[in-house]
């Protein structure tokens, strides 16, 4: 491996930065198609009802309305909208349009018309009669005897227990946790509650669907998963995969909300029906009500330890609300256990989970993918245990965390994908993260210790909290990436990737890998990605997979191209190809003789060689090495007003290798900010009838620029032998930290434990006994 890297490891400008800064970057809705029709949705006002009758024909009386469809106009094929490997581990419990509605906002009918205003008018003409059913509006009621059955339709499958509304169920044990807790000298037990959080991608879900001149269905769509989307839409519409062409342009944020086929199936149906291009775009209100959200959970943590601080038992029990449909039901909650639980060494670990349906908004994939919930519970519980034992929370974690060389026992039992293999920690920079992070926040000096307030203290009190985190890099054994790279006449290279850059900068990072191998500047790599007709296969952007898995595959493709170049250069220079190195746009020998890449390609295309330089690579792996984080937060609590103001968040993160430091920092900064909202201000509020009450940016509060604390990001590199240039992932792990770090900081400041998110002033004052 090269020790002085030229391109990898530096903060190269993103390949799309110029066009995005001038407004030229094109997103899905930035094109104009003649004859475009606008689709709009009629959605359910009821949380649970059968559609007793529906008549969409009056809508067609309006000139300019080209389609008005209900379940009667669509093939009834159960599918899942969850973008995962096939066969998807989520229940097949969705229908493009159904004869039953299962949450407020569920699809009832759809229209396509020549203007958005006509489409609105068309919706008003549709006549629907509902047979209202009693709803399940609290996840604790879902499994009770006599609860209404939400998925009573016979065609759905993959549901763990239909009658009990149980979409999925998980039980996993290492050792014997019952015995482990019995042996403990100190035990803690507590319940934690986490809420619906919404992604609020600035770009809403939007799909433009049309038939090309060959009658193939084209989907230009804001997606994280172009290839899964192609397969899933073909399946849901019962058409061949070869007749579907998915184009992913620039995407304005995904964060997991677009790891689904949300708008694509219906847009496709309308395009096929009208033979016109059709745009289906969610309004902001629809984003807040009928797109996906983070799974709410009720978690119970039990920990047992000896007085010396070693753990004897860790037991996590989870009740998850997957909402009206089971998209990502099993796998998100699988992560709630599998990502946090290996963090601390314990001979006995148990994880039990029930994932239930309710007549509430649909939960789905959201950055962190179950881990934020799990870490909130685990890291709050560990903090409490440390204090119980009179140990510094930092020292407790230092003593107990998983080490380099350790095997993750939970991974064997709880693998999210199909490969069941124990993870070995081949890289682990957590010790350095703990050292550097704690120094940056001044841990020793600034902790208050959680003691009760004294009379002359306050109202403003500060405290420090911390947590440790780990995640994964891709889904072990269940990812496949492919790339190809071809050389052009000006010695530039076109890199074809199936991966989906959704703002993560993956096009840039992957381009840097290719540039490094080939010895050319990044400007010489033209990255083409996200079009299923023209680029290679890839599972897409989720599970923090792209840099680690697609990165390794780009490395292979670039090395393949370099070997081909070396063969030709060897002949041109009369040197052994293996002895040549590639730098500054040249192939050079140790004897100082060289030939430029430009000369090589001309020789290939037009000279004696008559050959192409075209490298190919694929990559799949059973590994999923975790990045590690030590996160520290300083807060200021106003004990009269109940406010918790974050002052400083320090993230020390071991990512193996920072392929592009600015991009890595940006991923951390963004993830931390999303989680600050999760911890303090964000909550989808639902009425007693199951309706979202705050479906707007004014009412659903994400952090704005003037709310931000100081953020410090420390990139630590403990090289991962299985990763490209030693890299692991960066995209998700930091989002797991702020909630427990802040809750622990509140304890340090004022001595109360808050176990329900978000940490609102109401809750703080009640915990302090001041209201």
């Amino acid at each position, binding site marked *: 491996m090269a020790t002085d890297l030229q391109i990898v490891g530096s903060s190269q400008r993103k390949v799309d930065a110029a066009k995005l800064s001038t407004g030229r970057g094109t997103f899905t809705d930035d094109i104009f198609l003649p004859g475009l029709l606008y689709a709009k949705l009629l959605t359910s006002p009821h949380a649970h009802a059968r559609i007793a009758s529906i008549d969409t024909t009056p809508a067609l009386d309006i000139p300019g309305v080209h389609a008005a469809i209900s379940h009667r106009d669509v093939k009834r094929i159960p599918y899942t909208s969850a973008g995962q490997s096939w066969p998807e581990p989520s229940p097949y419990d969705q229908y493009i349009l159904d004869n039953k509605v299962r949450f407020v906002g569920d699809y009832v009918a759809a229209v396509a018309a020549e203007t958005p205003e006509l489409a609105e008018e068309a919706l008003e003409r549709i006549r629907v009669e509902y047979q209202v059913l009693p709803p399940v509006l609290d996840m604790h009621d879902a499994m009770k005897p006599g609860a209404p059955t939400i998925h009573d339709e016979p065609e759905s499958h993959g549901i763990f227990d239909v009658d009990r509304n149980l979409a999925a169920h998980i039980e996993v044990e290492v050792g014997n946790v019952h015995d482990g807790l019995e042996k403990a000298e100190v035990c803690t037990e507590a319940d934690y509650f986490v809420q619906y959080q919404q992604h609020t991608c600035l770009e809403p879900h939007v799909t433009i669907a049309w038939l090309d001149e060959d009658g193939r269905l084209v989907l230009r769509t804001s997606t994280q998963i172009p290839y899964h989307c192609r397969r899933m839409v073909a399946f849901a519409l019962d058409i061949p995969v070869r007749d579907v062409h998915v184009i992913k342009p620039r995407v304005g944020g995904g964060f997991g909300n677009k790891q689904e086929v949300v708008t694509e199936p219906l847009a496709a149906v309308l395009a096929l029906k009208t033979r016109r291009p059709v745009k289906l775009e969610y309004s902001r209100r629809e984003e807040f009500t009928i797109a996906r959200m983070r799974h709410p959970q009720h978690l119970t943590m039990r920990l047992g330890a000896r007085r010396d601080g070693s753990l004897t038992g860790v037991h996590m029990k989870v009740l998850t609300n997957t909402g009206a449909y089971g998209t990502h039901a099993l796998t998100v909650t699988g992560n709630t256990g599998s990502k946090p639980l290996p963090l601390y060494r314990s001979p006995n670990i148990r994880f039990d989970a029930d994932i239930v349906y309710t007549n509430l908004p649909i939960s789905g994939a959201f950055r962190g993918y179950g881990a934020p919930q799990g870490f909130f519970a685990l890291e709050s519980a560990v903090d409490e245990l440390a204090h119980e034992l009179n140990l510094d929370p930092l020292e407790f974690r230092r003593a107990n965390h998983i080490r380099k060389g350790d095997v993750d026992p939970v991974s064997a039992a709880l693998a999210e994908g199909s490969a069941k293999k124990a993870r070995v920690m081949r890289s682990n920079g957590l010790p350095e993260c703990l050292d550097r992070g704690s120094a940056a926040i001044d841990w020793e000096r600034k902790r208050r210790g959680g003691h009760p307030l004294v009379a002359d203290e306050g109202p403003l009190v500060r405290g420090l909290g911390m947590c440790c985190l780990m995640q994964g890099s891709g889904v072990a054994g269940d990812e496949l990436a492919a790339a190809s790279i071809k050389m052009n006449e000006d010695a530039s290279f076109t890199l074809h990737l199936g991966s989906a850059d959704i703002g993560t900068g993956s096009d840039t990072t992957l381009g840097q890998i290719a540039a490094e191998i080939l010895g050319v500047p990044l400007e010489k790599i033209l990255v083409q990605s996200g079009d299923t007709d023209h680029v290679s296969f890839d599972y897409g952007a989720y599970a923090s997979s792209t840099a680690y898995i697609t990165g390794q595959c780009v490395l292979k493709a670039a090395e393949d191209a370099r070997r081909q170049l070396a063969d030709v250069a060897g002949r041109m220079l009369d040197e052994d190809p293996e002895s040549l190195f590639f730098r500054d746009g040249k192939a050079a020998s140790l004897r100082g003789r060289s030939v430029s890449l430009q000369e090589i390609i001309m020789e290939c295309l037009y000279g004696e060689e008559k050959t192409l330089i075209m490298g190919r690579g694929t990559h799949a792996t059973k590994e999923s090495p975790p990045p590690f984080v030590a996160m520290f937060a300083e807060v200021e609590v106003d004990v*009269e*007003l*109940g406010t918790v103001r974050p002052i400083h968040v320090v993230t020390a993160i071991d990512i193996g290798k920072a392929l592009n430091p600015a991009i890595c920092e940006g991923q951390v900064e963004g993830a931390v900010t999303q989680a600050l909202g999760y911890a303090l*201000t964000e909550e989808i509020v639902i009425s007693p009838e199951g309706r979202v009450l705050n479906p707007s940016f004014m*009412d659903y509060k994400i*952090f704005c620029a003037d709310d931000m604390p100081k953020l410090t990001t420390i990139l630590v590199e403990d090289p991962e032998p299985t990763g490209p240039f030693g890299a692991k992932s960066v995209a998700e792990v930091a989002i797991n930290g702020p909630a427990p770090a802040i809750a622990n900081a509140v304890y340090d400041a004022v001595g109360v434990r808050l176990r329900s998110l978000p940490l609102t*002033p*109401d809750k703080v004052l009640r915990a302090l006994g001041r209201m």
Partner: protein
Amino acid sequence: MRELREYLRPESIEEAVAIKRERGCDAVYLAGGTDVLVLKPRGVTTVIDIMAVDAAGVHQDGEAIVIGATALLCDIEQHPAVRTAVGGALRQAIRETGPWLIRNAATLAGNVCNASPSADSAAMLLTLDAELTLSDGAVVSLDRFFVGPHETVLTDELVKEIRLFPRGRLARFHKHARSKSDIALVNLAVSARAKDGALHDVRIALGSVAPTPIRARETERLLEGREIDAAVLRDVEASVRREIRPISDWRTSAEYRAHSAGLLVRRAVEGLLSDLERRSAEEGMDS
């Protein structure tokens, strides 16, 4: 607003009012649009854009600051008279009414006429004895202007200008919200005249704790000319809580609104007292 058919831009207030009288409730006035075009009222067929009428600018008129109906928040906050009024509290209140992009389009008159119970400007204006001059010549005191949530005494009239009377008062403004970009959980302003080392003519106004922004008159009377010690401040908290009628909504509970309203008014009064001390010290040094 797909029923909208007509956009008119009269150049005088009389013309604007005449059109409104004729069209009735099918027509709405449009100033900056930062409320109307967000709320998008159904059934509106005519929009009367008033930004071309002769009611622009901010100027000083004797002891009053006069703010025209079409003056933009961004211009109001920059005006020298506003910047310096009541130690900067008025400017602060205007800046917290909405983000900069909104203030570049919104008008103060529009914000007042929208009559949200949580209007941030209203609390401050109420403590400066604000008066509204209407298109028909009538002058209405702001504390008689609000009737209910999004309801004022206006029928077809327009507000022509707003007059404020800082009168060398001390003032404090506070907006308590979940975020810097949110509607207030509670907002409030207090102002008072400083005389002989005590607070006089105290005004206390709050928003988000009643169907309209309100004055807390009993609490004001409590403070009039008094020596203010810790016991009085505790009474102030309790008195505020008695005078308000907050509701529980999904933003927060009525209990929290009451708790924080009382607390924040107490802190604002403490702020006035320290401003008073500072001013007395400065005057002491001058003499």
